[in-house]
Structure formats: structure tokens, C-alpha cells
């Protein structure tokens, strides 16, 4: 299984080609052979320390709470306690972020993009929010003045990459197999294959999932969360991590508002509760409403990326 994304070995595919995550890491084999890692544990600090910190000895087991309304919460319990006899134990300090490996790959992607003045945006949303249609229209508008390349993430099929290629923009499909999100290693591989031009825009369409992609930095300049008006206005509160991680929210399909009971102001208010710094633009990928503002947002960030180009 992939150590970063949890997908089964051989399940991840870039344009139909298997990606072997394992070639990047090294392991202790069953026969005891040690394969050292090529990427050193930079910044990792550890030192044996004397143990002796006291622990609460709470009961192991279920911490599921039932609310008055009958709904079940897995998030309200004590985070967990254990009952070791720790008096003579030897402790080793680690102090390392669990996602350090992904974050390392993300930083590598970020500097690769910065060297070339490429603006990378990570588009995230639930399935069916209209991300691909939004991308197609965005590319059509941008391509006359700036090169655009696309990385498409889906569990299976290359339908989305084909839709993007029909616009003339180069697109690379990553199939995550069993995985629920793109990770920085997959995107790094995609960058090598796609080789986007200098001073260009790279749009990364993440797997349709409002949960997992929030935690995985891909090396992008910004996450753009797409919320369509055919969804519930309370999604920012139901899935706060994604709205907290995003810099911009696009409220999509606003051409449908006359037919729906979707309180736009409420949705925006909820999103701002989660992330007071979130910028919001209302758009319709079908009619092009709001695109002037959205394209302006991209242009401003592209200008920054080009100005900060390091190579």
C-alpha cells in the first residue's frame, strides 16, 4: 500500500501507466535486509529521554457518543488514554509531522513551479460541482493569452482529461485507484511528464471529495474550493477542513438560482465562519457569469508568480 495516500500498490495510474510509489522509499525487508532511504529525515530531532511522565489510565475502547437527537459522534470523546507501566521505559523523541513525507514532495513541487513562474491552483470540491465544466470554460478564456496545462485526478477513467484535451490544452490524467485524493508525489511525477511551459497556469483538478484533499499539500499556490448551488448551503460547516484550507471559494452554477432554494448569502456566511480570510466569487460555468472576476483573480496571481520567478 502507498505510504502517503493509502492506495493499493499498482492502483495509481498516470495516464494509464502504473506508478510505483515504493521506488521512492526504502524498507527493511522480511529477511532483515535494510534498504536506506534516499531522502534523509531532515529536521528530524530525536534523543533518548528518561521516561516518567504520568498518564491517565482511561479505558480503551469505544468513544462514540450519542447525541440527544440520536446522531453518533466519533469526535467528541477523549482523544484516548492508555495504561502503560512507564517507570523504567526508554523514550525516544521524534517530533515529526505525520504528513512530513508528503509535505517534502510538496515543497519540491513548489520550488520547481517557482523556478518556472508557473501558477498552480488546486481545485477541490464534492463530485458533481461542475469543476471540469468550469475548467473547460476557464481554459477557453485563458488560452488566447497564456498557456494552460491541466492535471486531472479521478479514481478511474480518463474522461475528464479527454474533455480538457478537446480544448487544446495539454492534460494528464492521474487515476488514484483506491485513493481518495491526489498527493504531492503523484503531482511531482505528473509535472515531469506534462512539462508545463514557463510563465503558465497549471490547473490541478483534485479527486471529487470535500474531505481528504484538504490535508494534502500538492505544492500549489492556492486551493480553490468549488461549491455549487445545487448542493446544501451548510456544506462549509459540514466539511470545514476544506473551506479552511482554501484561499478562494467559487460559488458555481449561479444561473440555476432562480429555480432553487439556495441562500447564497448564508452559504458565504458559513464559509467565512470557517475561514474569515476566504475570498468568494460567484460564477456560472454555463453562462460565463462572474468569469471576468475569476479570470482577473487568476491574472493577478499569475503576475505574482511570473514576477517571483526564480530561474
Amino acid at each position, binding site marked *: *500500500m*502507498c*505510504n*502517503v*495516500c*493509502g492506495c493499493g500498490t499498482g492502483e495509481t495510474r498516470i495516464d494509464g501507466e502504473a506508478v510505483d510509489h515504493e521506488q521512492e*522509499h526504502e*524498507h*527493511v525487508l522480511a529477511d532483515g535486509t*535494510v534498504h*536506506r532511504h534516499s531522502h534523509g*529525515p531532515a529536521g*528530524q530531532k*530525536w534523543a533518548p*529521554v528518561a*521516561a516518567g511522565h504520568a498518564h491517565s489510565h482511561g479505558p480503551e475502547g*469505544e*468513544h*462514540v457518543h450519542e447525541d440527544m437527537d440520536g446522531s453518533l459522534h*466519533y*469526535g467528541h*470523546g*477523549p*482523544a*484516548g*488514554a*492508555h495504561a*502503560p507501566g*512507564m517507570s523504567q*521505559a*526508554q*523514550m*525516544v*523523541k*521524534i*517530533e*515529526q*509531522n*505525520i*504528513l*512530513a*513525507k*508528503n509535505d517534502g514532495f510538496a515543497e519540491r513541487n513548489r520550488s520547481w513551479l517557482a523556478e518556472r513562474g508557473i501558477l498552480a491552483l488546486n481545485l477541490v470540491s464534492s463530485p458533481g460541482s461542475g469543476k471540469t465544466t468550469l475548467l473547460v470554460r476557464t481554459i477557453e478564456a485563458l488560452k488566447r493569452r497564456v498557456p494552460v496545462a491541466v492535471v486531472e485526478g479521478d479514481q478511474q477513467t480518463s474522461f475528464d482529461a479527454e474533455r480538457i484535451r478537446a480544448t487544446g490544452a495539454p492534460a494528464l490524467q492521474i487515476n488514484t485507484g483506491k485513493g*481518495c*485524493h491526489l498527493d504531492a508525489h503523484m503531482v511531482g511525477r505528473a509535472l515531469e511528464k506534462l512539462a508545463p511551459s514557463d510563465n503558465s497556469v497549471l490547473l490541478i483538478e483534485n479527486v471529487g471529495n470535500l*474531505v*481528504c484533499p*484538504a*490535508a494534502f499539500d500538492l505544492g500549489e499556490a492556492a486551493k480553490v474550493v468549488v461549491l455549487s448551488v445545487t448542493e446544501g448551503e451548510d456544506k*462549509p*460547516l459540514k466539511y*470545514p*477542513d476544506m473551506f479552511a484550507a482554501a484561499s478562494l471559494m467559487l460559488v458555481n452554477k449561479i444561473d440555476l438560482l432562480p429555480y432553487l432554494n439556495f441562500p447564497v448569502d448564508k452559504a458565504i456566511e*458559513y464559509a*467565512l*465562519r*470557517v*475561514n*474569515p*480570510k476566504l475570498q468568494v466569487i460567484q460564477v456560472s460555468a454555463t453562462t460565463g457569469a462572474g468569469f471576468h472576476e475569476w479570470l482577473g483573480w487568476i491574472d493577478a496571481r499569475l503576475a505574482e508568480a511570473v514576477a517571483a520567478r526564480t530561474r
Partner: protein
Amino acid sequence: MHEMSLAEGIRQIVEDAGRSQGFGKVKIVVLEIGELSSVEPESLRFCFDVVMKDSIADGAQLQIDPVPGSGWCMQCAETVPISALYDPCPKCGSYQVQATSGTEMRVKELEIE
């Protein structure tokens, strides 16, 4: 979210530490998980046992030290405690609160044999 991936990340950190430090058996893995992070401790606990099989932390206990959430309230101009990303400031009730701590997901230390 993807607690299985996180458990895989923990396994890798533990195995790396075992190799560089030269220990072969881990009894307790201590994590620091922030209240505002996207980790669900019970789900992680379940995945942990499965993922650690046949590693140097096979059968190890998992201790999760919670880190309380806090945020910067722009109205009060001070740090206030919050327990969810969408919580209002407990002092003034404003939602202009930007999370500042409690988002960590770290392997803190290991008890080894």
C-alpha cells in the same frame, strides 16, 4: 479522513527512527493530535493496529495526546480557545477567528524496548 494513510505515515516514521536509532521494538507510540486537525482519533486507532502489523511497532499501544485548539480573534485582537474551525470567539461571539494552534498531527515520541 484517510486515517489509513496517516497510519501508513506513522509506520514509516517509526521504521525510519528504528533504523537510525538502532532499536527493534516499539511498545508505545505517542502522537500529538490537534483538536482542529482533520484526524479522527477513533478511526486512527482502528487503522493503527492494522497498519502496524509486522512492523517494529506490531502490537504497540497508541497514545494520542490532544492539543487544544486556539485562534486569533480579529475583533478582540487576542488568542482565544476554540474547539472547531467554525466556532465563534467565546468572548465577543464574532466568527472572525483564524485558527492558530491545534491543527498539528505529529509523532511525538516512542517508548522502546
